[in-house]
């Protein structure tokens, strides 16, 4: 089990504690604000929970800070942690908790037509007010000879999610890129308040459609942590298999899409064929092509166990496509040295997943926070060049690792439904954290349950995209405009998971 501690701290101690933890190899995984009612905690107040994690061995520390109900404010950690600065801006928009001395106290999540004083996550926020006139969104204007701006989106050609990108360009070289997201803010966290644990499951499966297994598992682990449910190793293995199936089909799709973005359509056609085979396998396994329905609080269910020979054949097939693509000198040239994210930039922005692994970081939640004993089979690929090629190679290698893990896991599984007993209520307000290495990177969920019933009081979701998005503009500096789609695809960040 994970080593866990929780500290109630004062505002003056926050920076010292945080700096100490960050210095000891912890990362800031999640910041969740809470608006407590007098019924919950005796008096109305705001409570901010900072979750720091490190591993291996699996260690988790929660710092809890309280802020007054009237004009709440907390000290900003922006000067020691970039991810903290993003969490603080999110909190400022949704809860109206002001981070003191924040270097960039601008809205992040807030829709430009929401009144600035409306904070939707507060208990007394009420229904959404009528849209007001749009607030201006400041873009840093780059000036100079021949500098011009290219605005792109939020509506794009092709079936992709909405995001606005503003390029400041001289000639074809990008000087600065500013991304504006949160066009698909759905209010998932608000929506979950008061829902039963089972109803929350349906939301978890839909946080980001391509990461159904990852987010569902993180949610279930958090709920089980809160309710102190011990799941059997058999359940953990079933879940681990679903997680790898999800990684496999997404990496296959990305490998093809990267080739398609350099007009190498044939590799795309073949990866689509392989992906379709995987999706049909998924459908047989859980009843859903994107693996919904296989994982639920306290258990897991499989309708069918994929054949290891199928997985082996798919892995060989994929390796061949990757070899053919990289054997093409034009593709190699397009990938190499494009959109470089240096190791230092990756560390500073707190990137996760294949983006971090391509820039020389080795953090992987399957190793750092294992929920299932997978022995030494989890090999974490690591590249140092930080370019599109490195992110392509990490995907190709992770897909092979996933196939290897599946070949070990699948023979130990039975097509059945396994469930642990879920206690109806914990009796006291409890919280839990779930950490999962989804295919994009480390997903962290934190839930707080109502004391009387197994219902959600607060659910905070952190998709790796939230931390990886700021890295994309960094990598785009000095890259040329026509390489942006390729660079963007190599990050392939979720809008839905980021915007929530």
């Amino acid at each position, binding site marked *: 089990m994970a080593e866990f501690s929780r500290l109630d701290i004062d505002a003056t101690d926050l920076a010292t504690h945080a700096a100490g933890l960050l210095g000891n190899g912890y990362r800031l995984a999640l910041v969740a604000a809470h608006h407590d009612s007098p019924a919950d905690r005796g008096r109305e107040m705001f409570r901010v929970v900072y979750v720091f994690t490190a591993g291996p061995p699996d260690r988790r520390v929660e710092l809890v800070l309280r802020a007054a109900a009237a004009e709440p404010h907390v000290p900003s950690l922006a000067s020691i942690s970039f991810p903290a600065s993003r969490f603080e801006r999110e909190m400022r928009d949704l809860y109206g908790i002001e981070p003191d001395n924040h270097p960039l106290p601008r809205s992040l999540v807030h829709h430009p037509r929401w009144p600035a004083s409306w904070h939707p996550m507060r208990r007394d926020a009420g229904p959404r007010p009528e849209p007001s006139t749009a607030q201006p969104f400041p873009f840093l204007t780059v000036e100079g000879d021949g500098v011009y701006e290219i605005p792109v989106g939020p509506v794009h050609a092709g079936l992709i999610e909405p995001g606005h990108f503003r390029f400041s360009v001289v000639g*074809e070289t990008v000087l600065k890129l500013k991304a504006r997201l949160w066009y698909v803010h759905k209010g998932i966290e608000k929506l979950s308040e008061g829902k039963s644990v089972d109803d929350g499951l349906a939301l978890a499966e839909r946080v980001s459609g391509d990461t159904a297994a990852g987010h569902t598992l993180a949610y279930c682990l958090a709920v089980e942590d809160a309710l102190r449910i011990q799941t059997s190793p058999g359940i953990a293995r079933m879940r681990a298999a679903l997680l790898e199936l999800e990684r496999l089909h997404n990496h296959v799709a990305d490998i093809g899409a990267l080739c398609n*973005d*350099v007009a190498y*359509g*044939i590799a795309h*056609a073949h990866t689509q064929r392989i992906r379709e085979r995987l999706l049909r396998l998924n459908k047989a396994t859980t009843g859903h092509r994107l693996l919904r329905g296989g994982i639920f609080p306290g258990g897991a269910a499989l309708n069918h166990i994929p054949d290891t020979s199928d997985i082996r054949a798919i892995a060989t097939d994929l390796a061949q496509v990757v070899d053919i693509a990289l054997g093409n000198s*034009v593709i190699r*040239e397009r990938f190499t040295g494009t959109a470089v994210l240096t190791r230092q930039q990756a560390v500073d922005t707190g990137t996760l997943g294949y983006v971090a692994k391509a820039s020389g970081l080795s953090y992987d939640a399957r190793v750092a926070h294992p929920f299932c004993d997978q022995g030494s089979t989890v090999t974490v690929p690591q590249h140092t060049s930080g370019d599109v090629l490195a992110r392509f190679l990490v995907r190709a290698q992770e897909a092979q690792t996933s196939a290897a893990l599946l070949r070990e896991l699948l023979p130990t599984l039975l097509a059945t439904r396994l469930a642990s007993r879920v206690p109806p209520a914990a009796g006291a307000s409890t919280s839990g954290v779930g950490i999962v290495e989804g295919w994009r990177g480390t997903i962290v969920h934190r839930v707080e349950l109502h004391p009387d019933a197994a219902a959600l009081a607060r659910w905070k979701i952190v998709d790796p995209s939230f931390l990886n998005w700021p890295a994309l503009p960094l990598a785009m500096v000095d890259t*040329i405009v*026509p390489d942006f789609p390729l660079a963007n695809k190599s990050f392939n960040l979720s809008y839905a998971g980021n915007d929530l």
Partner: protein
Amino acid sequence: MTPWLVAVAQAALLALAAPLVVGVTRAVPARLAGRAGGRIAQPWRDLCKQLRKQPTSPADASMFFVAAPAVMMATSLIVAATGPFIAATSLFGGADLIVVVGLLLLGTVALALAGLDTGTAFGGMGASRAMVIAALVEPTLLLAVFALSFRVGSTDLSRIVAAGATEPARVFTPASLLAAAALAIATLAETGRIPVDNPATHLELTMVHEAMVLEYSGRDLALVEWAAALRLSILLGLLANLFAPWGVATSLDPMWLAVGAAVFIGKVCGLAALLSAGEVWTAKLRLFRVPELLAGSFFLGLLAVLASAILA
């Protein structure tokens, strides 16, 4: 048959066949990639659909935007009518190499101006890229054909093709291969094919030709696409007839004209299939590598001219 009638028939044939040639360039890679792909006549269906629709213009666009489709189509039709495609009988003296390249360039410039005229970032971006490419492609087109015209002593395309068909030994030298390679690369670039541009992409930031036509709709879009298809057929037809002139009618006998038309369609479709099959094996170059490719093709053309001149 009168020369006028032949010219009109030739233009009509090219205009009718051009969308089908585009259909071939889409069907072949689809089949090679294991996809079903669309029908060969699909571009025609798309054109018919768009021709029925009313065009819209951006609020700030001026006459350049409105005129460009007509200019592109008109210049392409003139080249299609007078060029040595079915018959190489030089009756107008209009198929002069420099005139043909100039007319094609006029269409390119008209579209680039229209792209700028829309006032959008994409239009301007596409126009600037298209001009960089055109500045490198047009000299190559000229040089590659000069290598042949040197041997014939005329820049009239019809005479070059006729001479090639009747006395190939006089026209073709090993250097002609260099010229053919240069013209082939220039054709790829001029018609926006892989590895220079990707006609199938939806990614605006990578586009060249497509970025300039993003604001077109309805009839105007149909005209632009039709003219672009026509230019593809024209350039493939020139490539085919200059370097493999066999089957071109050298008189105005209707039977020979019919044979010439059939052979021409066969040659262009064959080249289109070859071109698009080649696209399956290659990827798109980084934009900054495109000038290197085009400079290479220019150099090939230059070598071809020098070799023809010295060997003569």
